[in-house]
């Protein structure tokens, strides 16, 4: 395996590779990118000796530049989900010889060596392009679980393994040099890391430089990239897909939409495909495993594993087994392998979702799916409010066009009476965080307002 090499095609060195919006400074070729990386790498070397670099950059191209420069120095990036001072302090205490790279709008009161990476970074004019080589065994990144299930836990990523996972993702999504990724996900997330950093580094795909967030940004960027002749792939989350639908904006010229980070309902997937005229692929993964499977949610219920990845059960649950997953990551999920073809599986819910009411068992995941499948329900979640196993469930639903009675009647048709929420609260929105997840504390706050 040629894990040491970045997969940059020397023939395309001077072609545009990283795309700015039209009114900005212009696009960046691979040659210019490597020149910037080399310049930034020198700045880092002058700043301090370091083994780890916290990267808080929000702009995709800055995250990519920071990663490449840090990796070229033989060090690893730390990608914390939160940039809150307490979080940074924890990292500072835990990791020796550490620096911090950001791209603005963040205030620090820290003794760490801090460097701002500006997207207007000057490139050196040099005859020779220096393409870094990274040993397969090098620790290149540490990702952290979001903390919705407890303290953030580190996950170490080694270059050779990341080369493997990126090849699998690339092959499954059929991404290549003709493709450009437009990303609404932060780089400090396994899904963001795979798409913003690994795909351009190793898959040869182009990347839209700026952070995309508002529906109008996404619409404009799609138009600009489509006009270049590249295939446009939107990398996003269910929260953003819902916002895009609600905005009423037309998105024309998408080759593919990719969603991950939170469960996507079949209903939303169908609406998205119908409205934006592009296939929507959902990616299954976790911080521990990175991605392992995909499905086309509008048409498929089962997930298809990547070639070479297997799921195996032991006495305490499921493990992901693959050459690039030597640590045998455990799934915190209940799944069911297809009896005829073990390349396919159904996701039944999180382990922590299992509930028992009046002697009957089900999972919150299943109940949430039932709720979200009701036409008119935009978002919703079932909740177990206290620790008593036999307490009534509650549910929150966002459904401006429906009454409580209509939602309860629809639920009654599909779920056992024991699981009908009591009460059901109609709310105008759920407190989802930046990654589309629902922090428990925010739900508790929201419920307080309902009582």
């Amino acid at each position, binding site marked *: 395996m040629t894990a040491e090499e970045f997969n940059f095609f020397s023939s395309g060195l001077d072609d545009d590779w990283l795309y700015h*919006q039209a009114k*900005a400074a212009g696009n960046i070729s691979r040659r210019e990118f490597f020149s910037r990386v080399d310049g930034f790498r020198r700045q880092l070397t002058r700043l301090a000796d370091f083994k780890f670099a916290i990267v808080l950059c929000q702009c995709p191209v800055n995250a990519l530049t920071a990663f490449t420069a840090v990796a070229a120095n033989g060090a690893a990036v730390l990608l914390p989900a939160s940039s809150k001072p307490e979080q940074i302090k924890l990292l500072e205490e835990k990791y020796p010889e550490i620096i911090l790279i950001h791209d603005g*709008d963040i205030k620090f009161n820290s003794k760490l060596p801090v460097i701002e990476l500006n997207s207007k970074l000057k490139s050196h004019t040099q005859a020779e392009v220096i393409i870094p080589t990274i040993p397969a065994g090098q620790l290149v990144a540490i990702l952290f679980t979001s903390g919705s299930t407890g303290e953030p836990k580190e996950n170490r990523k080694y270059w050779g393994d990341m080369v493997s996972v990126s090849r699998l993702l690339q092959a499954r999504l059929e991404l290549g040099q003709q493709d450009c990724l437009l990303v609404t996900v932060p780089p400090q997330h396994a899904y963001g890391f795979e798409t913003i950093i690994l795909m351009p580094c190793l898959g040869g795909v182009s990347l839209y430089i*700026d*952070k*995309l*967030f*508002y*529906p*109008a*940004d996404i619409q*404009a960027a799609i138009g600009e990239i489509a006009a270049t002749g590249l295939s446009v792939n939107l990398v996003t989350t269910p*929260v*953003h897909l819902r*916002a895009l639908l*609600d*905005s*009423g*904006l037309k998105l024309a010229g998408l080759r593919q939409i990719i969603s991950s980070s939170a469960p996507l309902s079949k209903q939303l997937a169908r609406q998205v495909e119908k409205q934006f005229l592009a296939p929507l692929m959902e990616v299954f993964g976790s911080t521990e495993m990175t991605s392992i499977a995909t499905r086309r949610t509008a048409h498929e219920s089962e997930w298809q594993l990547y070639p070479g990845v297997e799921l195996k059960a032991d006495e305490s649950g499921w493990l992901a087994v693959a050459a690039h997953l030597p640590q045998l990551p455990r799934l915190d999920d209940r799944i069911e392998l297809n009896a005829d073809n073990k390349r396919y599986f159904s996701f039944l819910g999180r382990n922590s979702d299992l509930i028992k009411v009046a002697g009957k068992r089900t999972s919150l995941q299943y109940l949430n799916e039932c709720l979200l499948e009701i036409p008119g329900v935009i978002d919703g979640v079932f909740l177990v409010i206290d620790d008593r196993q036999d307490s009534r469930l509650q549910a929150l639903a966002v459904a401006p066009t429906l009454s409580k009675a209509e939602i309860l009647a629809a639920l009654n048709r599909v779920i056992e009476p024991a699981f009908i929420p009591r009460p059901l609260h109609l*709310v*105008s*929105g759920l*407190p*989802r*965080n*930046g990654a589309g997840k629902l922090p428990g504390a925010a739900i508790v706050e*929201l419920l307080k*307002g309902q009582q």
Partner: protein
Amino acid sequence: MSIENEVAEMIIEVLNLEDIKADEIGVDEPLFGEGLGLDSIDALELSLAIGQRYGLQIMANDADNQQIFATLRSLSEYIDTNRSPA
């Protein structure tokens, strides 16, 4: 109703901030982080509401997006200056 008051009402309604009233949002208090404590998903929801009510599409790439969402005053001024005629 002043534009600030109108925008404050919209923020409370859209984000379901039930425990505060429109006149409790200081015009120069930060909306995000330290002040009112809004986050990025709130910004996304507000952008949709602003699009629906004022025919105005917020973009992150607008020169001063951070400035627009900085305070109630800056957001109100932006909406008032740029909105489509009713």
